[in-house]
């Protein structure tokens, strides 16, 4: 007996939307980070679901890739945020628009 894959996909879509909206709306870099993680995990869920549906291992392998990349990204990203915080005592992304000029 198994759950209909549609539920998983719906959950994943919900998680992705929350993540996307959150990443766009929030200003604190750490919070944005967490929303990005949410989006990544939504994608992971989709991968796993389809791996199960098609009986393929490929999707699960990709999940591992995403996890590793996300971890690396967090390391680099948090480091950058920390440095910026040290310089400007703020983690607000709107303050960081130096590249514009």
């Amino acid at each position, binding site marked *: 007996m198994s759950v209909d894959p549609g539920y998983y996909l719906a959950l994943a879509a919900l998680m992705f939307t929350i993540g*996307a909206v959150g990443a766009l709306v929030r200003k604190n870099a750490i919070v944005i980070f967490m929303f990005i993680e949410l989006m990544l995990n939504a994608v992971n869920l989709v991968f796993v679901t389809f791996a199960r549906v098609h009986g393929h291992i490929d999707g699960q392998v990709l999940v591992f890739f995403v996890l590793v990349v996300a971890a690396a990204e967090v390391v680099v990203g948090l480091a950058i945020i920390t440095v910026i915080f040290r310089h400007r005592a703020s983690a607000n992304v709107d303050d*960081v*628009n*130096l590249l514009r*000029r």
Partner: protein
Amino acid sequence: MTADILGQGFSANLAPWVIAIPLVSSMVLLFFGKRVGKLAGVVASGAIGLSFVLSVILFLRLIGVEAGHETYNLRAAGYHGFDWISVGGFSVAFDLLVDQLSIVMLLVVTGVGTLIHVYSIGYMHDDPRYPRFFSYLNLFAASMLLLVLADNALLLYVGWEGVGLCSYLLIGFWFEKPSAANAAKKAFIVNRIGDFSFLIGIFLLTTTVGSLTIGQINEHAGAMTAGAATIIALLLFGGATGKSAQIPLYVWLPDAMEGPTPVSALIHAATMVTAGVYMVARLSPVFEASGDTALMVVGYIGAATALLAAVMACFEYDIKRVLAYSTISQLGYMFMAHGVHAYSAGIFHLVTHAFFKALMFLGAGAVMHALAGEVDMRKMGGLRKVMPITGWTFMMGWLAICGVIPFAGFFSKDAILASAWASGDYAIWAVGILTAFLTAFYMSRLYFRVFEGRVIVPEGVHVHDVPPSMAAALIPLGVLSVVGGAINLPSILTLEHFLEPVVGESRVPEGLTPWLLAGAALLVAASGVLIARVLYLSRAGSLRRRKLEARLAWLVEPARNKFYVDRIYGATIVLPGKRLATWFADRFDPNVVDGLLVGSGKFVARTSERLRGIQSGYVRNYAATFLLGVVVIFTIVLAKVTL
């Protein structure tokens, strides 16, 4: 090459040396002038003198000891130098040609040239650029000799432009004077306009005849259509109007008097300005081939120039300028002769004119030399008493140009008038006789004012006659002005017959007519002299002059202003040209052309400036755009899949 007439008896191997000797001397003086110093004059005169000797040898070879009294054949010798420009089917060689026509010119150029070189030794003695002067003079001689000896039209053109360059250098010899520098530039540029026409004539000759050698051109000229021949002849004559100072390009010659006087004598009287006359005679078959059109133009332009310049000469006070207008007028006379097919008469007048006009220029130079550079004839008078050599020799020149029998000018002028009459073109004859009258008048005016009457000299000037070196040129030229006409006396060595093989026979009137014509010419000359005497030597002269001037006011004003020709050229060609060029240089090029090119660059820069605004720098905006992009792409893909 003129292989067909080569090897007819004599060798022209001396011909290149005639050119090379003055050329080498010129280079030596140019590079080592300081070391040569005051010897420069002797070196230069020696070089051109040597050329004269070689020319005489060539002449003797040409007439040939064995020739005896047999009929004159076309006796010519070529000298083959080297290939100059040779590409595709086109080839021009560095070849020289010695025939009757070129030998006459050769003798005149080197002979009169030598005398003027010698004269310059004295005249230029105190000039700081003494060696340079002689270097240029020798360079001129070399170019002129190349022009005369050239065996093809292009080589002739080399000499043609070469003499133009030397004329530029020598007119501008005292370049510190802005007027001299201006005159030099004007001479070169006006000549270039003529050369432009000449060059296009050469191109047309290349395509229609297929060869540029004089022999080939003259041989095949008859095969051209009259139309082609007319166009070519007129283009060539266009070149002649520049070099020989005819309407419409004569304007440079009066200004050219800014140069040292020996230069005016050599270049602007005796030799260079006659290059056009020589060239037309040289290529006479082309002019003949056009039917009557080209020669008619030549004749009428010559006649118009002769008359116009003579009128201007009557009202000029600068002695050198009077002589300059007189030269223009006499050159017009020579073209008149060409215009009525009387090439040999034209060349004859060229030769005698070289004698007496060079003489008078040198005399004028002697006067300037004595009077500290004064050229205004109102400030001098009676000079024959204080400078006898100059005065007496000048008198020979004056009588010659007036056409008094038996002086040289009488014969040559008479030959032209007779040919004009015989050709049936009485208009040209009438202009000729009118010009002869005016010539006698203005030359007498000049002579009486300067040399006769009460002695007038500027304040504080110690008048002295010429030094020996200058006398050494004046006296032979004086003698030649007296007896020069003998070269065309019937039954002696006659120039006309001598030149006949090259330029053909001239028509002369028969019977009693020539005597009547000669009588008329004499009468006219005498009246010109007499009127001048009444106006300038008699007591009531100045009063009569004033009356006459008042009556002729309509003519005097325009003539004194050179008929406004310079001003008209300035207003119609020079000024608009300058305006256009200025507009191009200051407005069009920097603003329009560069503006468009740089503007296109600026457009790119401005566009990217605007596009840059999209990059807000907020991560959120980038992410939102990103998301939007994904949604759009996703929608499109989905739509494609489902439809």
